[in-house]
């Protein structure tokens, strides 16, 4: 049988075999339109980030200089100045928040994932953290105001840190729990089979193996906390002075942060302050970007 005869037999009663592309056939048309739509949506999704970054680079980049990193914020009609104290304040406040929320969050995750996943306490804690993830951030500020500011009698970096810690905690707990749960059961078995106590299984196997995932969650939480303004408005407040006086840290006083500086300065009628707000925004975005990139690098290297 020749090839031509073979095709004829294969096609049977079909009139003819057409293999050429037909663009206006309904199926092809629908597929084309859908592809076009998906491309369009993807481009639109990228527009906000790119345009925000573009605007920040154009408007904030021009003001960026060594001075803005080391100088104190200017007063009313003063020229020059910077946001050195706010940058430092953000680092300190977020640092305090991390010192509180990371150990508590990771240990809570150990409980949820390994020690008592089905206990009442675990179920309650899981429900609470999931609810907290959706909580408006200003409520964390109100909470810290009532608990810390009113109690200590002053706005302070620790008050801001506690507010941010409340915000970070759910993210840390939930991602760390997932990371620990993702450690394969056979790996746990191996650890128990080697004669590990439960504590040793957690410290020597589960946490090191789950570290990339835990770190990603921690970094996401840190990045989010660094950009939060509302919880800091009435906990850390603002300050035009350094957090250190004569080499000594003065934590129990109002503390400047980048987010609050942006909020304050952007509403002022002075060109200088508005320019500084743009520059501070750019710096804040770059900080968050760096944290994200670093966390990604770390988790890729460990995985």
């Amino acid at each position: 049988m020749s090839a031509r005869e073979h095709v004829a037999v294969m096609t049977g009663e079909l009139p003819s075999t057409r293999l050429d592309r037909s663009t206006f056939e309904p199926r092809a048309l629908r597929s084309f339109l859908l592809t076009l739509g998906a491309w369009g949506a993807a481009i639109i999704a990228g527009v906000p980030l790119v345009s925000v970054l573009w605007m920040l680079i154009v408007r904030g980049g021009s003001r960026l200089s060594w001075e803005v990193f080391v100088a104190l914020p200017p007063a009313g009609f003063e020229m020059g100045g910077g946001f050195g104290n706010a940058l430092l304040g953000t680092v300190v406040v977020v640092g305090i928040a991390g010192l509180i929320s990371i150990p508590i969050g990771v240990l809570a995750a150990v409980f949820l994932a390994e020690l008592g996943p089905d206990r009442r306490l675990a179920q309650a804690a899981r429900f609470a953290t999931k609810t907290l993830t959706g909580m408006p951030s200003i409520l964390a500020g109100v909470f810290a105001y009532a608990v810390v500011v009113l109690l200590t009698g002053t706005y302070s970096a620790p008050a801001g840190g506690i507010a941010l810690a409340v915000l970070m905690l759910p993210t840390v707990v939930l991602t760390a729990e997932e990371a620990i749960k993702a450690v394969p059961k056979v790996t746990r078995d191996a650890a128990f089979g080697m004669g590990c106590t439960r504590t040793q299984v957690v410290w020597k196997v589960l946490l090191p193996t789950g570290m990339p995932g835990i770190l990603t969650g921690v970094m996401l939480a840190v990045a989010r906390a660094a950009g939060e303004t509302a919880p800091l408005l009435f906990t850390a407040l603002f300050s035009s002075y350094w957090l250190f006086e004569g080499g000594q840290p003065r934590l129990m006083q109002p503390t400047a942060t980048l987010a609050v500086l942006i909020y304050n300065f952007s509403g002022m009628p002075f060109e200088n302050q508005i320019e500084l707000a743009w520059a501070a925004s750019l710096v804040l975005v770059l900080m968050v970007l760096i944290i994200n990139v670093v966390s990604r690098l770390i988790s890729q290297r460990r995985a």
Partner: protein
Amino acid sequence: MTTATMPGSPRGTSETAAPKSNGVVIDCKLDQIYYGSFLAVRDSHVQIEKGKITGFIGPSGCGKSTVLRSLNRMNDLIRGFRLEGHVHFHGQNVYGRNVDPVAVRRYIGMVFQQPNPFSMSIFDNVAFGLRLNRFKGAMAERVEQALRRAALWDEVKDKLKNSGLSLSGGQQQRLCIARAVATEPSVLLMDEPCSALDPIATRRIEELMIQLKQNYTIAIVTHNMQQAQRVADTTAFFSVDISQGNRTGYLVESGPTREVFESPREQLTKEYVSGQFS
């Protein structure tokens, strides 16, 4: 039936119940093993002799893995696990009241079905158990010795810093064996150690087991009857009893491997080893 109420009487009666003289390292008399209300294994009495390989064979679901994992109390990790009977290890009941399961597992090592090295370097994998036991000697030498025993040294000696997970499946399984033997356990339990491996890697593990029995007592679960015939000195055949509506495993017979395969006492064993069911 004097030992039916074993839990709670750790050392006293065990001395009489388990004669140590004939080289029996583990003497387990499993009257009943439950997971919750499910009776998984009943009436199985197995002895594991020093320096020999004891093979557990039987159709799937016959409880052979459950029996193996109850020897070093790995089943304690499973919710609802309950055992009636006893497991005597060198004359001491592993399920005695004052026994720490963690300590048991340091004397009775385990190799699993899936190769499961930790996500750390090859060296750290082998050193893991030594560090766990606060070993204060020459770590590098012990690691090398364990890797040699596991017939892996020549393949990894130049890349001890690489991740254990970078090895092939067969190498990973030998790494797990090295990790288990590094702490010099007296018994090595192997739960279908070759079922995830290709035939060549399987052969290597089997040869390795025969070498290892000079130094260790081995109990191996396998679903592969040829494997049992190749490596096991003693074979225990388990089957499933579905008469009560449950799928309960029990020991049908045990004895020297040749006898079990060539002249079994029980009809069921004969049918199984001749391939009439599996």
